[in-house]
């Protein structure tokens, strides 16, 4: 379980958003993050794997399966129920904050 604050950093939010569509490997997660953020969020591979390892340690994501491609191991990650709850809570929080500005004002 995440410790302390339940807030989610932006790259982490996009990792979890990418995995909501199903299990993905590292390169597919990287491409999905860029697509979902319109190219704005582009974590380096070192940063991405740091996030994946820590999310995995905290039970927010899990290794779904491992495959060997061209003699190299490849892990597919999936979001857990904890991760699903975390990213939904973050989306609700951002929606409430955004609605303060974006909802029509009554005159």
């Amino acid at each position, binding site marked *: 379980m995440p410790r302390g604050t*339940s807030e989610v950093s932006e790259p982490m939010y996009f990792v979890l958003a990418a995995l909501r569509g199903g299990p993905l490997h590292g*390169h597919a997660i990287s491409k999905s993050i860029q697509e979902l953020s319109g190219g704005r969020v582009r974590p380096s591979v070192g940063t991405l794997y*740091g996030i994946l390892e820590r999310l995995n340690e905290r039970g927010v994501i899990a290794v779904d399966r491992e495959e060997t491609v061209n003699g190299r191991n490849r892990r597919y990650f999936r979001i857990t129920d904890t991760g699903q709850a975390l990213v939904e809570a973050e989306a609700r929080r951002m929606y409430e904050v955004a609605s303060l500005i974006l909802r029509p004002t009554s005159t």
Partner: protein
Amino acid sequence: MTALERHYRMLLIAYPRTYRAAHGDEIIDVLLASAGPTRSVPAVREALGLIIGGIRSRIAHLATGSAWADGVHLAVTAVSAANLAALLPYAGVLPWWTLLSALAMLAVLRGRPRAAFALTALTGVKAVAVAGGWALFDLTLVPVAPTFLTGDFLFERGGPFTVALGYAVVLLGLLALVWRGGPPRARSWWWWPVVPALAWAGPAWMPTGTPYALSLSRVAVEVAVFALAVMAAYLARDLRWALASGIYLLVASGELGSHAEFLTRQHVAYWGVLVLLTLGAVIVPYRPRRHCLD
């Protein structure tokens, strides 16, 4: 293997060996798939990402197990390096005692507290005897002239108390580790280059003729190691590095205190920087969390 893959594999050395063995190929795969077809050298952001990611991974790997036992072992390693550094310039005159001191440090590094205790006790008794001008074990003519690295005689301005403090701290730490049971982790071989840097009397930093002059190499190495401890404490939110810094600071303060009449503003500034960095290592683990992985 392409030139790009070779470069990425070199950068992956930043990660712990076990992590590299388990996931190095997977990361290389993603790096190569992300790179353009004409790229032959890593992009700066990817290189930085690997170095920072590797350091984070190493620190996370180090911040496991008992914090107090690991902090004590880290302090014992640092003080053992300082004890060996005090003897190293006199290796030509005291070869066997310097070798014993090096073996003591090797035993500390490999996580053998019992062997380290015996070797440190033996070397420590001899070192205190030399500092006090007492004959013990073999005949040593004092003052002992240096062979290299410094121009000072052995323990020229340090009395037996100062020398005994360094060895006593190591012995007490090793006793605590023996009492706890279970071998401490093996430490990095990077501790060896610290020894000649601590022993070297140059480059000159204090005015010529300053009694009890500290060398710039020693100050730089100590400040760098203390700063690394603050960074590790910050990233891992763990107090083991604060404990190690505090114990080393105790020894350094004892040494400065025994030379109180020779201290200059530069000595006080050096001590102040070590105190600030130690306090930093104590405070940073309690910084507010920015997000759930922080």
